[in-house]
C-alpha cells in the first residue's frame, strides 16, 4: 500500500499527512507537483493520492484555484484515470478546495466544477475543533464511523452549492460529513458548531463512487489522543478520531 502526498507552492500539511498514513501501515512519499508533472506515470505505483492542507498560492484568486488550474493544465487526465480505478483520493482543507475547483468532487455530470468554496460567513479565519457526523457510509473513507471530533482551520470553508446540484448531491448521497452541535444534532448553520456557514452544514463531499473524498476538517491533526483538546480528562485512548479515516483507507486495501 503506497500513498503519494502532494507538495509544493504553499501546500504545508504534507509531513503530518504522510505520517498519519504511515501510522496505519502505508508506505508513502511526498512528491513535489513539478516532479509529478515531469513524470506522471509514477502515479501507477500508488494506491492513494492525497492532497494535504496548506495555502497553495496564498489563496490568491480563491482558495485552491491556482493549484487546480495547474493540475488541470498538466495532470488532469492522469488524475481522472486514477480516480476511475479501485484507488482512493483524499483532499484535506486546501486539498478539498483544490478537488472542488477541479470538479473531481462531486463530479455529477460535467467536467466543470459544480460546487464552489467561498469565504466563511464570519469573514475571519477559523481554527477550532468541531463535531461531525458521518452522513455517507458508502465511501470507503468513512465506513463504520458515526461521529468525529476534528479541527478545522480555514478562511474559505463554506460550500456554495446551487440548488439543483444540491438536490442531486442529496439524491446520490454524496454528503460525506456534516457539522453537528453539542447535542449531536445538525448544527443548522449555527456558529461556532458550523464554523463557516456551509449550507446543510456540509463539511465534506464525495464523488459518486465514494473513493474521492474532499473534506475541510483535518483528520491528520487529530491522530493521537494528546492532540485532542483537554485530552488530560480522558487518557484511556491512544488515538484521536482522525485515525479512523486513515485506518479506513488501510482496510479498503486489506
Amino acid at each position: 500500500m503506497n500513498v503519494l502526498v502532494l507538495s509544493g507552492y504553499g501546500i504545508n500539511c504534507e509531513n503530518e499527512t504522510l505520517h498519519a498514513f504511515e501510522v496505519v501501515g502505508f508506505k508513502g512519499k511526498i512528491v513535489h507537483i513539478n516532479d509529478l508533472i515531469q513524470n506522471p506515470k509514477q502515479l501507477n505505483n500508488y494506491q492513494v493520492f492525497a492532497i494535504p492542507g496548506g495555502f497553495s498560492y496564498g489563496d490568491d484568486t480563491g482558495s485552491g484555484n491556482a493549484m487546480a488550474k495547474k493540475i488541470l493544465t498538466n495532470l488532469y487526465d492522469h488524475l481522472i484515470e486514477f480516480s476511475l480505478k479501485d484507488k482512493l483520493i483524499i483532499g484535506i482543507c486546501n486539498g478539498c478546495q483544490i478537488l472542488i475547483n477541479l470538479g473531481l468532487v462531486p463530479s455529477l455530470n460535467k467536467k466543470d466544477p459544480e460546487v464552489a468554496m467561498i469565504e466563511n460567513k464570519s469573514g475571519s479565519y477559523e481554527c477550532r475543533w468541531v463535531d461531525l457526523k458521518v452522513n455517507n457510509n458508502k465511501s470507503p473513507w468513512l465506513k463504520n464511523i458515526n461521529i468525529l471530533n476534528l479541527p478545522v482551520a480555514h478562511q474559505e470553508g463554506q460550500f456554495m452549492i446551487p440548488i439543483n446540484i444540491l438536490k442531486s448531491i442529496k439524491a446520490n448521497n454524496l454528503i460525506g460529513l456534516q457539522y453537528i452541535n453539542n447535542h449531536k444534532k445538525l448544527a443548522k448553520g449555527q456558529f461556532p458548531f458550523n464554523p463557516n456557514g456551509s449550507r446543510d452544514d456540509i463539511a465534506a463531499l464525495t464523488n459518486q463512487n465514494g473513493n474521492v473524498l474532499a473534506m475541510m476538517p483535518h483528520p491528520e491533526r487529530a491522530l493521537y489522543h494528546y492532540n485532542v483538546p483537554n485530552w488530560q480528562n480522558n487518557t484511556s485512548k491512544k488515538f484521536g478520531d482522525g485515525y479512523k479515516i486513515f485506518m479506513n483507507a488501510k482496510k479498503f486495501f486489506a
Partner: protein
Amino acid sequence: MTNTIQILSIEKTGKESSLQKEHNNKSIKIIDGYFFSRNLDDQKFTKISKLISNDVSQTILTKKNVNKVLSSYCNFNWVVEIKFLPGVTDNIATTVKEIIKDNLKSSFKSFELGSTKIILIKGKKEDITKISKNEANPLIQTIKIYPFKQYLNNFKKNQFKIEKVKLPKKKYSKKEINLDISDYNLSLIGKLGIEENDKSRRGTLGLDLESLKTIRNYFSTIKRKPTDVEIETLAQTWSEHCKHKIFSAKIDDIQEGIFKKYIKGATDKIIQLRKDNFCVSLFTDNAGGIEFNKDWIICHKVETHNTPSALDPFGGAITGIVGVNRDCLGFGKGAKPIANTYAYYLADPNKKYQLYRQKNKNPMLPANFIAKGIISGVRVGGNCSGIPTPQGNVYFDDRFAGKPLVFCGTVGIIPKKIRGKLSHKKKANPGDIILMAGGRVGKDGIHGATFSSEELDPNSPVSAVQIGDPITQKKMSDVIIRELRDENLYSSITDNGAGGLSSSIGEMAKESGGFIVNLEKVPLKYNGLYPWEIWVSESQERMTLAVPPENVKKVINIFNARGVEATIIGKFIKKEKAIVKYNKTEILNLDMEFLHEGYPKLNLKTSFPKIKKEKKKIIKKRSLIDKLHKLLSSPNIVSKEFIATQYDHEVQATSIIKPLQGEGRVFGNATAIKPLFDDEKSIALSQAAYPQYAETNPYDMSGCSIDTAYKNLIVSGANSKKIAILDNFCWCSSDEPDRLYQLKEAAKACYDYAVAYQTPFISGKDSMFNDFKGFDKTGKSVKISIPPTLLISSIGVVDKISHLTKITPDDGDILLVLGNTRNELQDSVYSKIIGYEKSKNPVVNSKDALRTYRIFEKANKLGIINSAIGIDLGGIGIAVTKMAIATKKGLTIDLKLKNKISVDQFLFSESQSRILVSMKKNKLANFKKIFKGSHYTIIGKCTGSDVVEFKDNKKIIRGKISDFAKSYKQNIKGL
C-alpha cells in the same frame, strides 16, 4: 479589447458583511479587479478570466454585462478604487502572473498587472471616504474615489490604469562623497542622507557626527574619498539595529557594557555552573539554540518590528513574522520553523488619539487600524507559511499611541548532526560562491535598519515599509530544509533582513575573511535601482548561501525546479576586504575590521530618574462580584480568543497544550507543542512583560518578567533544568540619562534573576528609541514615549506527556495557593480599574520563588497536582474565576484565610511567584509531607456547582460562572 478583468462574488462575502455591519450600510459590494498594462483581445480575456475566477460563485464583469449585473444589487453611486503604490509588493498580482505563465505557455508578451480592490456603495460621499480610510493605507496604497457613472465610463473606455514604477533611466557613474565639510553639513548627511545631484536627500542614515568623523579619518588615512555605497554600507552596519551600540557601550563604571556584564554575563556564569550540554549556540547566530534531546537542537528568536508596524501595520507585522522565520532558517545550517509567538503592546483601539507627524498633516493611523492590521499581518504570515502560532498575548496602554510594539518570535528544530557534522556550526570558505535565493530586489525597505534606530519623526521614509510574501518564502524554505541542507550542499547560510545584502554578506564574510560582490548580477523587481539601493534594500524572502563552486549548478537547479530563483552574485575570499563592484567599477573597498569594528564606541552616563507616582483615584464602592466582572472584562485580562482562533495553532499536528484551555476555553499563559512524532518530549512556550511596573521600579519590573515567564513553564510541566529565556528590550529616549538608568537597573535584574533561576539567556534583541515626536490635533508639539518594556520569552522542554498540566480542577478537588500573597497592588490592574490603594509594587524573592517551583515540580511529577494556573494580572481573584470558567465547575473560596491583609489585597494583589493548584483530597497528606515548611494556603475547593462563591465569616458572596464567562469573553471595544 479590454485592459481589465473584474470579478465579483455572487453571494455576499464575509468581508462584505463585516463592512456592511461596520458602516451600517447594506449596499456595499466588493470587486476583485486586475488592471493590465496592455489590452487583452477577446480570446485572451476569456481564457485569463476563466483561469482566475470561479464559475459557480463569481461573475466576470464585461462591457456588455457590467451595468446589468451591478444594477441587480442596487443603484450604486460611489466607488473607491484601492491599489498598491508602484513598487509595493503585490502578492495577488504575482500569483496571477504565475497562473497565466503556467497555463498559457503560448506567445503572451510580457505585461504588467496590478490587483485592485474596488468597493461600490450606495450612500453619501462621506460614507465612502470613511470606508476608504478604514480599508486602505495611503502610505502604501492609492485611493481613488469617484462617482459610479465614471466607473462605468472607465469600464467602457478602457480607462483603468496601473501605475508602474517609473524610475528615471540613468547611467550609473561612481559617486564620491566629500566629507571635508563643516560639522553642520556633515551632520546633515547623517540626519537627512546623502545629497543627490538635484540637491534632494536620500533619507536618514542614522549616523551621528562622531561616526561621520571616524569615517572621514579612515578615508583620509587611505588617501581617497568614500563612495556613496561605502557610506551607506557603514551606516547600515554601524546602525543601532545591527550593532547594539547602547548595550555594548561603556555605561557609568561598567566598562564592558550591560550586554557583556549582565546578559551574556549571566549566561556565561550559568554555563560555568551547570556543566551540561543544554546550551548549544548562544548569541552568535541568528537565533539561540538549546538541546532538545540527544539528536535534536531547538532554537528560538524573538524580533521586534515596531516602526514599520506604526507606518503600515499589516505590512510591518507580516514582515515581522516571516522575517523572524528566516532567523530560524538561518540558524546553523538551517532550522525548520515549528512555532511562532507574538506579543503586541498597543494603544486602546477604542480611543482616538489624533496624532500628527507634522503640524496638522501626516496623521498617525488610528489606533484600531493599527491593532487590526498587526493582528492580521501575523495571521497571514503565520498561516500561509504553515507554521503554528500558538503562543502570544496583547497588552493595551495609552503610552503605545505613538508607537506600537510588535514582537514576533519563532522556534525552530534541527538535527544535531548532518552527515556527521555539527549542524549549528557553519563557515563560508574562501572560494565559496555567494548565492542569493528567493525573492527579487526592489526599492522596498531601503534604510530600514538605520531608520528603526531613529525616533519616529516627520522624515520617516515611506520606503522603509515592506510587505511580506509568505508563499515565496515557503517555497524557498522547503527547498533549503528538505533538499539542500541534509545533502550538505552549502557551507553557510544567513537571512537577508535589516540591511539586506550589505548586512548578510558582511556578516558571513567574517567566516571566510572577505568578499567580492558583483551587484549588476542581482535580479531586480524593476530596472533603475542605484547600486547603493540594491546593496541595502530590505526586500523580503531572501537567503544568502555560501556554496562550494562544485555544488553551485546543482543547487541552482534544485531551486529552479521548485519555482525559486537563485543567482550567483559574488564569492567569498580569504583576504579581509569587503569589495563591491558594479559593472566592473569598484564602488566599495573597505577593510573588514573597519567595517565591523570601526564605529566609535559610546560612553554613556545614567542618572536616577524622578519616579512618576500613580495618580490617585477614589475607589468607588463596588461589590466583590462587580469588581471581578470589571477586571475580567478589562482589555488586559479579557480573553484573546478572537486572536487564537484566527491563528492556526494546529498545523504540523504538534499542538499538545493549546492556547484555549478547558471546556470553557480560557486563554492560557503557556502553550506546548510536541515537535517529533517519535519522542514524547514537548516544547513549552511562554512570555511576560510588565511595562506597567517599569516607572516605579525597573529592577523589580525586570524581575517580575523573568519570574512570570519562568513560572508559566514550570506550571505547564517543563523540566526546570531545561528552561532558557530570551530578552527583548524595547526602550524609549535611550539618549537620556534617566532612561539609561532604568535600562541599567532592568539589565542588572536580568543577571540576578537569570543566575538565580539558572535560566540562560540564549538570544535577544533591543529597540531603543520607541518615541513619537509630533503634534496633537491642536498643533501643539507632543512627545509620547512607550513605558520601558522588557519582554522575556521562555522556552522549555517537558520530558513526559504525563507532566503536562491542565487548568481545570475536578469535583471535590482542594484548592491551594502556593507562594506568599503580600499587599502589592501598586501598578496592578486593580489599581488602574478599581482605584488606588496605598500599597507596594510586586517584588520577586527568588529564594522563596524557587522553593515553591521545585516543590511544585516534584509534586507534579508524582501526580499529586490535578490542575494548576499561574497567578498574575488580577491576582488570586482572577486566577480563581479563570479556573472556574475553564472547568465550568463551581469553586468555593474561604476568605477567612487571607491572613493580615484586606479582602481586596488578598484577591487582587499581583504578588509574584504564586501558583493556584488543585488536587484530589486524598493527595493532600502526601503533598503536605513534601511541602512542609513552605508557604501555601488551602483556600477552598471545587464544588461542581454553577457558581464561584467567596465566604467571609458569615457572609457568602456568589457569582455565576456563566456570567463571569460572559465578562471574560467580551469583545474588546474598537476591534
